[in-house]
């Protein structure tokens, strides 16, 4: 178990190093510099822009050679300092992320977990029941092939504009003030629902299809047939099939995290829902190096961490992995 984990950890560390380095490098090689662009949009007195320009270049150390900037970047990273945003000067990148990331969590976590659980259950039912299957499969395929932003628009149009049940944008009403009271929580929930529903439904289809195929495959394997000939009940055979079928689904979860996060960026834009997604899109548009770095760093950490959790879960649910590393087999 320790060997398994330490091997995984080493891989994650290497991945982290390269991902962070790339994410430092790429924005700096895109043509254009954030300060000139920022300043070009201000009306100012003759000569005023030069003063600001030199002030900024010094403040952000952009006049130093690249290698020095790179070393400085790692140095401050170890101190937990992600720098200061250029476009949202003088806010520290860490503060911007802290304010935004909570909105990502409350959409992503429930939608990933619930769609995975419910999708697998529905898929399992679909796999053994032909009637249900005939009805559900087209729905699953429709859901999984929908692009996030398109599905978000559909959800927004149907539930927001036509039925008028849910507000079409933002995290809570303009007249609300955040606080621990029912009025606010209810209002927050109403705003949260449509982005959540979008993320939930699009993911659901994929999991259900995967599970359905796995169940059909497992019920045709030799061990199932053997159990059947021994006279085991259908339910027992299905349960064994489910336990085996869930393994690739767990791996699938780890693999699809990247797609899910990019899907959430698009969903946030459609609903003007705050979060890292929009922050990042803006930062990239304006080549705000420090904010891009910070956002990506967070995403990298989130994806790696989620993968790590999946690895641990995998070990728990698959005895073969557990035993192979502890030398029992």
């Amino acid at each position, binding site marked *: 178990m320790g060997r398994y984990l330490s091997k995984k950890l080493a891989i994650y560390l290497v991945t982290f190093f390269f991902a962070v380095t790339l994410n430092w490098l790429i924005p700096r090689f*895109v043509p254009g510099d954030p300060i000139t662009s920022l300043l070009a949009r201000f009306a100012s007195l003759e000569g005023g822009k030069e003063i600001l320009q030199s002030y900024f270049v010094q403040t952000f150390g952009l006049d130093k050679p690249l290698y020095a900037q790179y070393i400085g970047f790692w140095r401050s990273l170890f101190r937990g300092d992600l720098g200061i945003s250029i476009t949202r*000067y*003088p806010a520290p990148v860490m503060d911007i992320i802290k304010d935004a990331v909570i909105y990502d969590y409350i959409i992503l976590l429930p939608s990933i977990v619930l769609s995975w659980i419910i999708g697998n259950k529905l898929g399992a039912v679909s796999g053994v029941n032909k009637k249900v299957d005939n009805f559900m499969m087209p729905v699953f395929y429709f859901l999984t092939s929908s692009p996030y932003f398109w599905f978000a628009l559909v959800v927004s149009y149907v539930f927001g504009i036509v039925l008028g049940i849910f507000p079409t944008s933002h995290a809570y009403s303009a*007249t609300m003030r955040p606080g621990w009271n029912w009025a606010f929580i209810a209002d927050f929930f109403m705003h949260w629902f449509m982005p959540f529903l979008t993320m939930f439904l699009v993911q659901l289809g994929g999991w259900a299809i995967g599970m359905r195929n796995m169940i059909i495959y497992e019920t045709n394997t030799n061990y199932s047939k053997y159990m059947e000939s021994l006279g085991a009940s259908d339910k027992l055979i299905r349960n064994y099939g489910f336990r085996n079928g869930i393994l690739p689904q767990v791996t699938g979860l780890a693999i699809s995290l990247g797609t899910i996060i990019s899907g959430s960026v698009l969903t946030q834009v*459609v609903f003007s829902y705050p979060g890292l997604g929009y922050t990042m899109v803006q930062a990239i548009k304006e080549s705000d190096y420090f904010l891009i770095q910070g956002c990506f760093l967070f995403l990298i950490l989130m994806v790696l961490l989620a993968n790590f959790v999946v690895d641990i879960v995998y070990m728990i649910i698959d005895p073969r992995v557990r035993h192979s590393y502890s030398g029992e087999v």
Partner: protein
Amino acid sequence: MKTRVSVLLIVALIVSSSAFALAAERNETLIVGGGPWSPATSWNPLYPSRTSATIGLVYETLFAYNPLTNEHKPWLADSGEWISDTVYEVNLRNGIHWSDGEPLTAVDVVFTYEIARDNELPYTPIWRTLEEVKALSLTKVQFVFNNPSYQEWQIELYSRPIIPKHIWKDIPSDQLMIIANENPVGSGPYKSGVGGADRIVWDRDDNWWGNEVFGQPKPKQIVEMIIYENNVALGMLMQRTLDLSNYFIPGVPSIKDAFGLTTWYDEAPFMLQANTAVLYLNTQRAPLDDAEFRRALAFAVNPEVIVERVFEYMVPTADPTGLFGGWTDYRDAEVVEEYGFYYDPEVAKQMLDEAGYVDADGDGWRDLPDGSAMSFEIIVPAGWTDWMESIRIISEHFRAIGINATPAFPDQSVYENRMFTGNFDMLINNYGSGVSGSPFSYWNWIANHNIHRDQVTEGNFGRYDNQELFDLIFEFNQILPMTEESLAVASEIQKILLQEMPAIPFWLNGMWAQTTSKYWTNWPTENNPVGYPSTWGGYWQFGTIEMLINLEPVQ
């Protein structure tokens, strides 16, 4: 038992606190969008990228400016005038005060300027012409110049926020632009409220000095929503969760009646005009270095088609001089008559033929006089859909007279980089052509003299080099406005720009504004000009505060 008690306690807490859930009722709240694109991180009046409504709502200027009448309206000042060629005298209003109760006096005005003399701030360059600012009494200030830039001063008067000395004198020099100034002490009608990741909130200051002078703004709070896409703004207008939208929303003319939206004009052009969209031509690349060729291009494009197809008549075409609003006081009709351009592809073809730009090799495209082929790329940022559509049309029209032009859409940062470094053939831009109190700002942007360097950021992106024109624009700045002499110089500038055509003005972008009337009425419109419906940064002094004062809540 213990858990039950704590659950009860929590419930009691929640129930009791729900009374504070609403900061203000919906009909006391004005919800707007279109100004900020990210949450507020700086309220610092000295830092130009502060959250945009800071100047206007919290900090105020000596004068406001009404772009509709082209008049300066006394704001903190009671009056102001040039009492000699080099001295501008301002009388402040009596009894005005900061939001912390301290009086706002001439001392603060002097301080606002002296802090820029003693430190490196964005407006420090004003001291190149300013000699001294002195307070003659608590309400009388004199600005003594050595060589005044009269035109720029007209803009300065409504742009510079006056800051309180008793607060800023204690801030160290190296902190002046760094501090976020989260709880700004200003003199304006609003204070910074509790915002969030997707909004900026302003709470009314019921103790504002202007309540007795101008009247009290009606909204108890203003919430600026940060909206990521124009169609979200449209959805919010339809749901009535937005009172005023300052976004460009395609299709407004056809849906406005169905959805009960109000615009400034009831008919075309629907919107007020905010800036001139010009096509910059890179004069450092042949044949765009040839004035005849540039002029021919101006005749080749029919901006009416852009107005109709792209903007659905929400913008008007530009005057050949590019001037609009108050700037047209300087427009010389005779010069325009003689040198102005208009859409006529035949004239364009003839000009090109005469200048030797003919199709030498018979491939259907005109070539350079020496016979070599020429082609052009027109760029605008990807995603700016209205401009993207516009340059498609412009390319079409160029192609119709045999000029091989194609549109291209690089990312915004790449577009800007190519613009600043002169690495383009043609591009549309409007960063510096915004409505202002003097055409100097437009001319100094179209034909800025600061072009001999790696990055050109202050305008004149095509790097058109003409010292005579630069001198004229400089001279125009230094002559008393609206004098015979200043009009003569203005005519000369227009003449050179039309003859030389370093940039072609095509249409006037709108001051986009759509309003809904479920919660607020008495919006400013053409027939009811009670203010200026804009929440863009730098536009609050144009009459947005008057709009807030004149709004009526729906009961």
